[in-house]
C-alpha cells in the first residue's frame, strides 16, 4: 500500500484509538509521543480498533495497551513477543502490535526477540528504547552505554551496548526501522509502513526517559533522517546500520523474506477421523 495515497479524510482520527484511561508516565516521557504515533498510524491505516490487539510485557513503555481503544494484553516482563506470537498464529485475522522497552525486549526477553525475528510471524514490534530500566528506577539495560553511572552499576557496567537493529537484521526481521519519539509524525509513518509490511517488522524508537536519563533531551539535536532509501539487501543494510551514528532515522531495511507458514490451514478432517489411527 502506498502511504502517500492514503485517504485524505481518514474516517477515524488518531483520537479514536485512544482510551479514556490516562497514562501514568512522567510528564515529558518520550512514550507519550510513541502512543500518539501508534494511534496516528492506526488512523492512517483506518484499522477497526477491535480488530487490533496491542500486546506488551512490563515496564513504563509496556503500559501502552490500556491507553489504546484496541484489545490489549499486558502480560509479564519480557514475554510480550511470545504472547503476541501465540495470538497472531491462533488469530491471523487480527493486526497484532507488540510494544515495550529495551529491558523488556532485549534483556529478559532477548531470546524471544531473536526467535521472533527469525520466525517472521506477521507482527509489528515497537520498542521504546531509552537505554535504561525506567520502571525499576534507572538501572542499566542492554543498550546502556558502558560508562553510564548508576546505583546498581557504579562507574558503569563496562559492558558494550547491544545493537538491536543489527541483531534484528541478522536474526531475520523482515523490516527494520529507527524512529524518534520527538518526531511523532515520522514515527507514525514508519509504524504504519511496519504494520503493512508482511512478516516481522521491528521499529526501534528512541524514546527519552526524562526522569532517569534527562540528558536524552539532547537527542532531538542529534537525530537526522536517513540520507538514503530503505534497501532490501540485508548485507547493505547491515553495513549501513553498523556504521551509522545511531541517530539515523527511517526505514533502513525492507526485506522480502517469506513470512511464517505455520498459521492454521482449513480443516481437512474432523476429530473423529483422528481416532482411526488408534483403532485395532
Amino acid at each position, binding site marked *: 500500500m502506498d502511504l502517500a495515497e492514503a485517504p485524505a479524510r481518514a474516517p477515524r482520527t488518531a483520537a479514536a484509538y485512544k*482510551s479514556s*484511561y490516562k497514562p501514568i508516565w512522567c510528564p515529558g516521557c518520550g512514550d507519550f509521543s510513541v502512543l500518539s504515533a501508534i494511534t496516528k498510524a492506526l488512523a492512517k491505516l483506518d484499522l477497526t*480498533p*477491535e*480488530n487490533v*490487539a*496491542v*500486546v506488551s510485557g512490563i515496564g513504563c513503555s509496556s503500559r501502552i*495497551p*490500556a491507553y489504546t*481503544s*484496541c*484489545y*490489549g*494484553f*499486558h*502480560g*509479564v516482563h*519480557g*514475554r510480550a*513477543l*511470545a*504472547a*503476541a*506470537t*501465540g*495470538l*497472531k*498464529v*491462533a*488469530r491471523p*485475522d*487480527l493486526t497484532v502490535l507488540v510494544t515495550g522497552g529495551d529491558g523488556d525486549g532485549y534483556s529478559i526477553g532477548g*531470546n*524471544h526477540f*531473536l*526467535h521472533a525475528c527469525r520466525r517472521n510471524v506477521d507482527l509489528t514490534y515497537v520498542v521504546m528504547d531509552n537505554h535504561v530500566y525506567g520502571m525499576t528506577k534507572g538501572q542499566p539495560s542492554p543498550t546502556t552505554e558502558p560508562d553510564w553511572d548508576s546505583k546498581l552499576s557504579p562507574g558503569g557496567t563496562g559492558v558494550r551496548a547491544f545493537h538491536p537493529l543489527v541483531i534484528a537484521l541478522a536474526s531475520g526481521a523482515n523490516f527494520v526501522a529507527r524512529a524518534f519519539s520527538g518526531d511523532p509524525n515520522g514515527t507514525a509513518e514508519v509504524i504504519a509502513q511496519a504494520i503493512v509490511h508482511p512478516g516481522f517488522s521491528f521499529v526501534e524508537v528512541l524514546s527519552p526517559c526524562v526522569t532517569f536519563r534527562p540528558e536524552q533531551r539532547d537527542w532531538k539535536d542529534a537525530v537526522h533522517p536517513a540520507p538514503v532509501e530503505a534497501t532490501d539487501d540485508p548485507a547493505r543494510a547491515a553495513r549501513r546500520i553498523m556504521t551509522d551514528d545511531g541517530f539515523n532515522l527511517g526505514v533502513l531495511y525492507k526485506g522480502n523474506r517469506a513470512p511464517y507458514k*505455520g*498459521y*492454521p*490451514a*482449513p*480443516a*481437512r*478432517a*474432523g*476429530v473423529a*477421523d*483422528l*481416532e482411526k489411527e*488408534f*483403532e*485395532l
Partner: protein
Amino acid sequence: MPNASPQKTHAAGGVSIALAGSGGSGVMTAGTLLLTAAAGAGYYGLMVRTSGPQIRGGEAAALLRIAPHPIDGLDDRFDALVALDWGNVQRFADEIPLAAHSVVVGEEAEGEAPEIYRASGARYVAVPFKKTAKSIAGSWANMVALGFAGALAGLPREALHEAAKGTLKKAETVAANLAAIDAGVAAAQGVGGVTPLPPPGPRSRARWLISGNEAAGFGAIRGGVRFVAAYPITPATEMLEWMAPALAKIGGALVQAEDELASVNMIVGASYGGVPSLTATAGPGLALMTEGIGLAVASETPIVVVDVMRGGPSTGIPAKSEQGDLAIATQGLHGDAPHLVLAPTSIADCVATTQWAVALAEKLQAPAIVLSDQFLGQSRAVVDRPDELALDAKRIVPEPNAPDYKRYRDTPSGVSPMAVPGNPGTVYTADGLEHSEGGIPSGNVRDHQLQLDKRARKIAQHDYGERWADVEGEGEAAVITFGSASIAAREAVARLAAQGVRVKLIVLRLIAPLRTAELARALDGVSRVLVVEQNHSAQFHRYLRSLADLPARQQSFHRPGPLPLRPGELAETIAAWRNA
C-alpha cells in the same frame, strides 16, 4: 521381597515377557509387534519401554504384559526374558525382576546369561536367533525372537503374521520374516515356564492401541484445543509430535517455541485470542512456566499445561517416571493463585482427564495442570475405546456491544464473560497486574480483595460432579492415591479382595481444588488411611494433610522412581498395615 505365590499372581495377571537387546537388535520393534499381535488375537496388553542413556545404539528393553482383561500396569515378575544379546542388558535387572518359574532365553552365540539374571533361579534356555535368521535369507533375528516370545505367551501364529505384515513393506521381506517368525515359534515348543494365555473373551466394544501421550493429546483435541506451543522435553515430546500433524489436519496449529517461557506465554496469547490452547512439558519446563501460569490466573485466561512427570529435581532422570511434581503443581505459583490440577489414572484415562482439564479451564477461565508421567505417557496399551464425554467446555463470552461491559466483573459464580478480540464494543486490556473490574491496573485494597475472592470463588464453588475421584470398595481402611501410582494400588487392592481382605480405594483425579467435603464423605466410616505415591518426600500425603481432615491413624507409602510401584509390594504393604 519374597514372592508369596507366583503362580497365583501369574494366573490373575496374564503373561509378562521382556524383550531386551542392544541398539540395532530391533527389540522395540519386536515388542511393538508382539503387542499388536496380542491385540489382534483379542487380548489386552501393555508395553513399557526402557532404554539406556544413548541416543542410538544403546541397550533397550520392551516390557510387556498381556491378558484377556484390561491391563493398566506391570506385574511383579516377568515370566520370560528374551534377550537378543547381553550387551549391558544387566542394567535392566531391577526393571526386569524374574522368579524361580521364569525362563531366561538368550542368544546361543552369546554364552550364559549374566549372573544377575540367573540369581533368581530362573531357567536358562539358549536359542540360535542369529544363526536361524542367517539361514533364512532376508530375515531378521528380532523376528525369530518375536515368534519365540509369541509362542511362549500362547499367541496364535496367524496373529504374529498379521502384525508383521502390517509393518513390513516389501513382499520378499514379508515372506522371509514370516518364515523367521515360524522358526521362532518352532524353537519355543516345549520350552515351558510360561503358562500360555487362556482364550480371550468376546470383544464387546472397539479397542484402541494408544500411548498415554497420544491419549492426552487426543483428549485435548476432543476438548477443543486448537493451538499448542511447546519446547521439546522428554517424556512429553511424543505428545507434541502426535499433536502437530493432528492439529494441522483439523485446522489448528502447533508452534515450536524457543523455550518454555515462550511456550506458556504463547498459549496465554492464543487463548486470549479465543482459541483453546495447551502446552506439554516435564518438570524443568514446568518450573520455567510458573510465572506464565500465574499470568493466566491473574488475567483469567484458560490454558492447559500437561506435565509428563519424570525423575527430578533438575534434569534428574529424564526417561523414568516419578510423581515428584505434585508440590510445584499445587503450590508452586507465586501469590494467591487458585488453579486446577488434575491427574489421569491410567493410559486410557489420559483421554478423559485431559479433555476434562480443557473443559474446566475454558469454563472457569483458569489454568489447569495435568499431571501425567513418563510411565503413562510413554507406555502403550490396548484399551477399550474411551467414551465421548458430554462435557460443557463453553467459554462464556459477551454479546457484541454488551452494555457496560467489564471484563473482570464480580459475579456470583466468580466467572465473568471474556471478550474475544474482534468483538465490537467490549474492548479491554487483559492484565497480570491486579486490576479493577474494568481491567484497569489497581493496587486498591477493595479491588485486590474483590478479585482475589472472585478468582478463588470460581474455582472453589464449581460443581465438579463425580469425576473428582474413583471411590471403590468398602472397609474401615482406605488407600488414597493418585495418578499412575493408582494402577499398582488398584491391582493390589483387587488381589487382597480376592483373598477376602476388604480395603477401600480412593483415587483422586481432581487434585486441586481438593474436594474436601466429598473426600470427607468418601472417608465416612474409614478409621485409617494409607496414602500411596511415587516420590521421595510424600508430597501427596503432606498436601492432603494440609487441607483435609484425614483420620488420625494415617500412614504414608512413598517411594521415588525410577522403578515402578509393583502391585505385589503394595499388596504386602497394605496387608501388613491393615493387620498392624
